[in-house]
Structure formats: structure tokens, C-alpha cells
């Protein structure tokens, strides 16, 4: 019979299987389950921490004044979608400045600097114009002084509108 022949052929082609160690497979399974559980726990921690950070953002009109982690208190009820969108836009606008979230910041040596301090040096565009006019070169404040000393911590490479930072 062809079916018997087929079974025989497949059986021969499959060969003999090596012995397995059930303890080995069990150990791998346990490790994987443990890893999955740890990942889930870490994800939960990150989510909760993220929620707490969002609550504690300065300037947010959320329930930051209610204390540390109070996710339940962070819930707000909305009457409809338009209400929700309007509130979201309002809250986002309060946290976003011209340079990004939380009014952004400029790059200086050592990381981000606050932009709230007033600018002391001339803007880059003004320096360039002076150089082009043949005046004495204006040294960038960051080159002659420690970073942030003359400019209030703001990089001098910002193009324009730095004074608009709030």
C-alpha cells in the first residue's frame, strides 16, 4: 500500500530522536517564566513611576498638590470628547515652551541648562553681522569663560528668539 510505504519512508527519514533531559527543559521553562514575571513587574513600576512624574510636573494643572502617587486622584471626568481634547490642549500648552517640554533648554557643557535665566551675550546672528562688517571678532562667551558663566547657561549657538524663552 502506498500509504504504508509513505509512513515507512517518513519514519525512516525522521530518524531516531536523541534522549531529552526533562529537568533541562523544565529549568529553561522556569527561567523564562521568571524573566517574564520580572519584565511585567518592571513594566508596572515604570508605568506607575511615569504616572507619578506626570503628576509632579511643575506648572501642570493636574492634581500635583494632592501629594505623591495618587493615580486615582489623577482621573478627571469629561462630559464629551471635545471637553477632553480642550483640556488636554490646555494642559499641554502649559507644559510646552518654544524649546520643548517644560520650556526646553539649551545645550552647554555638562548637559541641559535652564532657559529661564536672561541672556547676557548677543545673539549669534548679531555676532555674525558684526564679524561680516569687519569689526573686531567677538569671542563667544562660552569660549572665554566657563560654560554658562556669561550666558546664563544658554548655548550661544542658538539662532534666534532665545529671549522669547519663558
Amino acid at each position, binding site marked *: 500500500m*502506498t*500509504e504504508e510505504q*509513505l509512513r515507512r*519512508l517518513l519514519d525512516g527519514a525522521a*530518524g531516531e*530522536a536523541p534522549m*531529552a533531559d*526533562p529537568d533541562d527543559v*523544565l529549568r529553561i*521553562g522556569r527561567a523564562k517564566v521568571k524573566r517574564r514575571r520580572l519584565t511585567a513587574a518592571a513594566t508596572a513600576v515604570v508605568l506607575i513611576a511615569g504616572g507619578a512624574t506626570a503628576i509632579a510636573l511643575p506648572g501642570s494643572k493636574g492634581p500635583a498638590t494632592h501629594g505623591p502617587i495618587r493615580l486615582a486622584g489623577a482621573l478627571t471626568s469629561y462630559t464629551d470628547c471635545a471637553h477632553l481634547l480642550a483640556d488636554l490642549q490646555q494642559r499641554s500648552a502649559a507644559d510646552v515652551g518654544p524649546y520643548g517640554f517644560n520650556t526646553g533648554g539649551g545645550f552647554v557643557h555638562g548637559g541641559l541648562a535652564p532657559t529661564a535665566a536672561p541672556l547676557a551675550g548677543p545673539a549669534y546672528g548679531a555676532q555674525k553681522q558684526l564679524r561680516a562688517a569687519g569689526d573686531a571678532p567677538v569671542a563667544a562667551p562660552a569660549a572665554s569663560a566657563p560654560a554658562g558663566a556669561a550666558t546664563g547657561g544658554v548655548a550661544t549657538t542658538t539662532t534666534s528668539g532665545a529671549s522669547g524663552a519663558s
Partner: protein
Amino acid sequence: MWGERRDDEAFKRLVDQTWPQLVRTARLLTGDDAAAEDLAQNALVKTYEHWGSLRAPEAASAYARTTLVRDCVRWRTRNRREERRAPDALPERLGADPYDSTGDALRVRRALRTLPDEQRAALVLRYLLDLSEEETAATLGVARGTVKSRCSRAISTLRAQGLLDDEPTAFERSTA
């Protein structure tokens, strides 16, 4: 804890019982001995992960089998391009000693590699594992009629390659 709730002894028994069939199935589906063992182990590990959600202990072996077949198809898809590019490492054994079982095994494996994945899977489940048409259909997630047609086409291909007698199978006679 979940880990302690799992019936580890039952799982070890499952490994003992299903390992040989899983490895042999994966060998024919992938054509790669090393990958077959990895895939079999992976199928069992996945079964362990979902042990708690399996309705009955008997469902565990079916779960492992289904997982294995799906993983083998994925493995084939991933490796197909490389396989086409690489020259065949196995020596051509057609016309070798008819009593040489190694030669037969190589011929069959080579012929199976020419089949589309879905036909090979149907054939192996049906004739190596001796699953019924219903069980094969459930494992592959297709209709029973699809299993029939896939097996029929696969058998025709193998016959055309001279691996099978010209005599039609009982299944072929019933569908003729």
C-alpha cells in the same frame, strides 16, 4: 507563587512522552537536525509557560505540537532565502544502494524540501504522527478539505519523484 502551582512532574512526563515525536516532526519540517532540537525544546518551554491556561493535561501535547509546527513554518520562512543561496551540502544519493537506509532518508528529506511548507506539514502530521484529518486540520488551523487536498498534492509530487509506487492511496481512491 505560580511556579509552585505548576505541576512540574506532569510537565517532565510530557517532555519524556512527546520529545521524540516533536524532534522527528521538526526534522522533517525543517530538514535541519540542530534546529529541530531547538524548536522542539522551544515548543515545550512555551507549553510550560502556558501550562496554567491549558484546559486539560491532554491538551498540553496538542499545544506543544501546534506550537512546533507554527515555529517550524516560521523558521523555514526565515531560512528559505539562505537555503536557496547556499549550495546543497548533502551529497547527491539518488541511485545509491537500494538497501542503504541513509540514502533513502536523504532522498525523502530532499524530496520533502521540494514541497511547499503547508503541504509538507500536512503530510508529516498525517503520516508521520498518524493524526486524523480532523486533528491535522486543527493543528494547522485549516479546514479538513484543505488537509485532504494538501496531502493529495504532496503525494502526487513524491510519486512524480519516484519515491512512491504508482498505486493510488486509499485516500486518493476515495477522493477520485
